[in-house]
C-alpha cells in the first residue's frame, strides 16, 4: 500500500510531513500540459487529481494555465503581408497562363 503525504492543506498552515509518493506543487506545475493532453500515466494522473482536489494554489495555477491557452487562442492571426501576397498572386497568374494546364 502506498502512503500519500500531503503537506498542503486547503486552509490551515502547512502540515509538517514531507510528501513521499504525492506530487508537490512544484512538481505538479511541470505536468500541466501532459495532463491536458491526457499523456500522464494512470498513476501520475491519479496523483495529479488527488493533489488538485486538496490544493487551492495548484487549482488556481491550472485555471491560469487554461486561461492562458484560451487567451492565446483568441489572438487573431495576422494578415498575410501585401507584398508576399502580391508575389504569390503573380506566381498564380504565371501558372494560369503557363503551359502547366495540360490536364
Amino acid at each position: 500500500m502506498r502512503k500519500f503525504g500531503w503537506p498542503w492543506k486547503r486552509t490551515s498552515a502547512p502540515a509538517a510531513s514531507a510528501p513521499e509518493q504525492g506530487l508537490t506543487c512544484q512538481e505538479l506545475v511541470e505536468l500541466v500540459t501532459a495532463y491536458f493532453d491526457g499523456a500522464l500515466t494512470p498513476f501520475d494522473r491519479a496523483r495529479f487529481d488527488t493533489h488538485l482536489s486538496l490544493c487551492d494554489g495548484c487549482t488556481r495555477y491550472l485555471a491560469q494555465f487554461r486561461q492562458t491557452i484560451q487567451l492565446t487562442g483568441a489572438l487573431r492571426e495576422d494578415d498575410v503581408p501585401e507584398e508576399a501576397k502580391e508575389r504569390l498572386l503573380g506566381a498564380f497568374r504565371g501558372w494560369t497562363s503557363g503551359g502547366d494546364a495540360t490536364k
Partner: protein
Amino acid sequence: MSPSPSAQGDPHAGEAELIARIRQRDEGAFAELVDRYHLQMVRVAQSFVRDHETAEEVAQETWLGFLKGLDRFEGRSSLKTWLFGILANIARTRGVRENRSVPFSAIQGDDPEGPTVAADRFFPAGHPSAGAWSSIPDDWEAIPEHRLLANETRATIDSAIAGLSDLQRAVIELRDIAGWSSEEVCNVLSISETNQRVLLHRARAKVRLALETYLRASG
C-alpha cells in the same frame, strides 16, 4: 477579418471546393488558401531555417510546388497534410536546423532551461512544506473579462510569443492559435511527442508568466 467557413466545424470543410476552383484557375480561391495557410507555413519554415527571409522563400516555393502538383492531388490526405508535407521537404533541404530536438524530459526535472515556475514561488528544500506554494497564484477568474480581452493583454501575449525560441514559437502557434493536433505538429516539425509537449509546456508557461506580470502591474 473575413469569416472563413473553415472556422466552424470541420476545419477542412470547403477545401475540396477550393481546390476545384483553383484547378479552374480561380484566383480568388487561391488567395483564400494563401490567407488560410501562408503565415502558418512561414512559421513552420522558420523553425527549420532561422531567418525570416529564407522562411518566406520556403513558403513561396511551397506554393509553386503546390500549383505544379495540383493536378496530381487526389484528396486522399487532407490538403493541409499535403501542403505542409511539401513545405517540410523544401524546408529540410534548405534547413540549417541544428539538433534542436530537446533531449530531456521536463518530467524528470533535468530540463536545461530550468523549471517553468520560479523556485522562489515554493517553499525550499528542508522546509516542512518543501515544494508547496509559498505564495498562492492569483485568482484570474475574478478579473473582468474586458480586461483579459484588452489590447494590452493581447500585446503582452504577442511579445511573450515573440520572445520564444523558434521551435517553441512554432509549436505554441500551431497548437494554441492554429488549433493543430499534437500529432500534426510532431509530423510537420519532425519532433517526438515528448519534445513537442515539453516545447509547448515551456511556451505556455512563459506566456502565463508574462500575463501574470502584466496583470499584477496593471491591477
